[in-house]
């Protein structure tokens, strides 16, 4: 499966954001909801390498995953 994933450590926890590129249609709805975390290039969405994972950004990333019209984004955040 073609997918793109980034994991970041936030304090004593971590967050893993996965974009499934078999489903992603690159229309940038995630980048509109969470511009600090996502960008679109070559027709697919990607997680920025330099995200500052504060609470506000994490909240928008969850919104972007729930709002993705292609069901392409999953966010894994082990409970703290």
């Amino acid at each position: 499966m073609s997918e793109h994933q980034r994991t970041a450590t936030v304090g004593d926890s971590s967050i893993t954001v996965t974009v499934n590129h078999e489903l992603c249609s690159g229309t940038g709805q995630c980048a509109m909801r969470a511009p600090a975390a996502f960008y679109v290039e070559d027709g697919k969405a990607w997680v920025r390498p330099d995200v500052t994972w504060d609470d506000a950004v994490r909240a928008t990333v969850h919104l972007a995953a729930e709002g993705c019209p292609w069901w392409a984004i999953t966010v894994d955040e082990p409970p703290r």
Partner: protein
Amino acid sequence: LDGEDVRYDPMDYAVPNPWTELAADRQACPVARNRHGFYQALSYDAVSEVLRHPERFSSRSGNNLARPGKNTDVLIYADPPVHSRQRRLMIPAFAPARVNRLEPYARKVADDLLDGVSDGAFELIEQYSNPFAMTTMGCVLLSIPIEQRPTFRRWTLAIEAETAGAPAEAWEADVAECEEYFRRELRARAEMDDPPDDLMTVLVRSQLENQPIEEDAVLFMLRILLSAGNGTTTDLITNAVWLLDQHPGQKRRFLSDVPGMVGGLVDETLRYDGPIRGIFRTATRDTAVAGCPIPAGSRVYASLMGGGHDETAFEGADDFIIDRDWNTIPPQLGFGTGPHQCVGLNFARLVGRVGLETLYSRLPNLRVRPGFQPVHRHSPIRRGFHALELIADAKQPRTTDPSMAVTPHEYKIAKVAVPGRR
């Protein structure tokens, strides 16, 4: 700006290219109430805001002008979370990785159709753009029998007329016949041991919230898929051909590198004059867009045409330019935006790209018949011609193998895994 002072009227079909009216209204006030009493959003930002906020602008009952009370809560007539659960069922069939596997089949279908075109007069919609769209999309997703394409075209136009608010005699009998056909097919599939691999089977065998989907809801989904699937892609190809003919400099550029420029042509057509003119919503509460107050219960019209021609989003917005750099400008709104963004857009891009590339590779001398003036069908929602008469000559040989044994059935709706949501 209010009522009679609003110049742009999406229900006035006497002005085929209302760019001046759109610009004047947008300049004065990007959102205003028109003479029909509904609010129209004409700027890129206002259109995006309406479409991206279903909690303020509901899709329920909004888009069917003839029967506004009928069939709410299905796909384009539903709001999240009901809409989201239904849309999820469509995702495997429309996933880009899956759709792109249809390309060799689409190329062969396009070549086969053009083999049947002789030198001389050529009506694009009936002879090419509609059978091409219907064969690549309808025959694959809905198992439309190839010999019944003209019947499905008639049904598609009837559904469009109903949605546009035409009198019942213009659509009622055809719509009933179409629904009856789909009802028979669905009931047959529910009984089959080995049903065809298509969206009808997916829908009739799926459950939402541990319940089968009601038959009436599935029927309405199929109606929407038929009309939104082959009707719009037919117009995408046809509108692009007309626009190229109206912009000879752009046509020369396109012909200088058809495979390289066809993607840009598709996006620019969607921006400039795409198959969807505008979309209705209903305000769920007292709200405001671009400073214009909108009372709860108001009907709101998001003008995709208005957003596409907004100079603040697109430099030279009223110019047709097929090689815009889409990496550096805002995305065009031809597929809408927000949760209802066209679920079939990968399919539509494939149909548009292969349809136009094959057409102009084989008929580089293609042109509108001198003196022919196409007429738009009447709809505030859809944008397309009744017919487009062309002259074809100097046909080039096909590039696909006519005996190539490619059938859509090799491209099954895959078991694409779609993650759930919490």
